[in-house]
């Protein structure tokens, strides 16, 4: 945990410096502009400087063991947590990526199938029922009810008859 606290504080300090750099790129100005007040980059620049100071402060407190995380000898994540976070984040990542190709509905069906059935080890009849019910309910709520069309990718032609029946 201690190492994570220090590394994360260092990363936040670097991010703050990056923000300061971004805030002063022309045409942004960080000083006073006559008749226009503070320049467009002023607020993000000075606030990022504040972030940098805080990040250094957090790092030093962690280093000196003032914070509980700075004193902790426990691991930041145990093996279950690493596995759970990796599977969850990468499966959501794949769902978002798949949306471009097979559309949101097929992507969320596949995601549910994987997460509930494979990762969650829920019996397959329940998994299939839930995986089908979720996209169908979302279709009726968003497309039919609120007229918000979700991306369909290659499956767009399959939805044309459904649009006629339920959307328009």
């Amino acid at each position: 945990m201690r190492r994570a606290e220090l590394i994360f504080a260092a990363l936040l300090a670097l991010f703050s410096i990056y923000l300061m750099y971004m805030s002063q790129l022309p045409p942004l100005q960080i000083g006073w502009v006559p008749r226009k007040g503070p320049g467009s980059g002023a607020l993000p620049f000075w606030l990022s400087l504040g972030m940098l100071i805080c990040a250094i402060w957090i790092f030093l407190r962690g280093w000196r063991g003032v914070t509980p995380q700075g004193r902790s000898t426990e691991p930041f994540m145990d093996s279950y947590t690493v596995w759970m976070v990796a599977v969850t984040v990468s499966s959501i990542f794949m769902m978002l990526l798949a949306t471009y190709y097979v559309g949101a509905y097929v992507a969320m069906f596949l995601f549910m199938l994987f997460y509930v059935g494979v990762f969650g080890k829920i019996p397959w009849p329940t998994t299939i029922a839930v995986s089908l019910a979720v996209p169908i309910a979302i279709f009726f709520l968003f497309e039919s009810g609120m007229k918000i069309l979700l991306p369909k990718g290659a499956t767009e032609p399959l939805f044309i008859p459904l649009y006629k029946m339920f959307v328009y």
Partner: protein
Amino acid sequence: MMEIFSHLIDGFGIAFQPFNLGMMVLGCLLGLFIGAMPGLGSVNGVAILLPITFFVPPTAAIIFLAAIYYGSMYGGAISSIMLGIPGASTAVATTFDGRPMALQGKADFALVAAAVASFVGGTISIILFTLFAPPLADFALRFGPQETFALMVLAFATFVGLGGDDIPKTIFMILLGLVLSTVGLDTISGRPRLIFFDLQGFYKGISFIVLAIGIYGIGEMLWTLETSRGKVEIISHRFTWQRLKAALGEVKTAWKTMSFSSLLGYFVGVLPAAGATPAALMAYGLTKSFSDTPEKFGKGEISGVAAPEAANNAASTGSMLPMMTLGIPGSPTTAILLGGMVIWGLTPGPLLFLQQSEFVWGLTASLYAANFVTLILNLALIPLFVWVLRMPFMILAPLIFVLCFVGSYAPDTRMFDPWLVLLFGFVGYVMRKLDYPLAPLVLAIVLGPLAEDSFRQTMIADLGDWTVFFTRPLSGIIMAFAVLLFAAPLLKGVRRRKAAADKT
């Protein structure tokens, strides 16, 4: 007073319009469900469901979201008692005595106590809201941009002075939220700012909804998956109407506790950094210390359930007072509601009472009605909620992930936002593990544009003279409070070090 009463009557006319009433009942039901599910609280529910409200009139939208807020305060007790896991942080104190009662076979008594206490807390706080809101809004009409900015500083200062979290981490999160709110086109000069890696999506800025869904949807679910290991254990209990009636009789004995906790909860809820969780913990602690039998607390004392539940409901209404009258949210949930109001085209703050009285009084009246509806639904549907709690968490979690995806895509219909949600979710989870407070971040990204506008307006009007924030009487008083709050933890630290040095 008569004017308030007549506005309230008009408000009931609006709240009882069939569509608004339907939205309220739906919101109460969803709120109860959201509150009951471990890991989900009002802030998660409101963040994930906010995008849905962009397609209904603002009054119906706020009634729906306020009902979710309310319902989830009631619902939080269900999982605290039945699972021993708080539905949300606001219901942590409810587990102290609620869980022991459930283990003693008195789960129904604990659930009834929680529902009735929530009702008492809700009712007392709404009456206080009705009485305090109009005069406060009237007073706030005198505020110029200097006072508006000073109020924002005060809101941030309360997180530092009263939040109880690590000071540098709290300040860092406030600053991060403010910087993220500046991403996109500058409203004054029209210049693009902080367009990371030249990605087109950043030109529209980072919506607070995207951040809120990320950290309260994905991040919170990751946290709950880690802590619960995907498994939660529900105790088995048979519910009968006779037992529920007997429980109502026992709850009456705690009326003093409920009244006191409601008042405490309301005033704690008004403070931006405090909110429902500390209110509930304070109510529990004070009830225990004033009790003749403090040794019974933690072992299944009914007052130990009633106190935090009355306080957390009262605090949720309390946090709406500064949101509606000053445009300063009193909790992360109200911060999201405030952001929603901006998207609905409203200007949060005192002008609402003049320009949108239908909205304000419709909401106020709906709170009275929602409180009653939630009590009835809660008591009537206890067996149903207990049954729903048996839903495996490995079904609920991916369902929330899918809702986060669709909910973040819907407002602007662009894939850029779901990607940001995933990023914020992961970073939010890491930050939560390292004890970075998330509420100041959400508050800052919501208030950021308002704070920047008021600051720059003042600077332009007063030719860069920043002392004006201190020299104008009203803003000066507000800033003085803010400075005191910022200084409080530093002074405390100095005193603690001095005391330690004296000892050695």
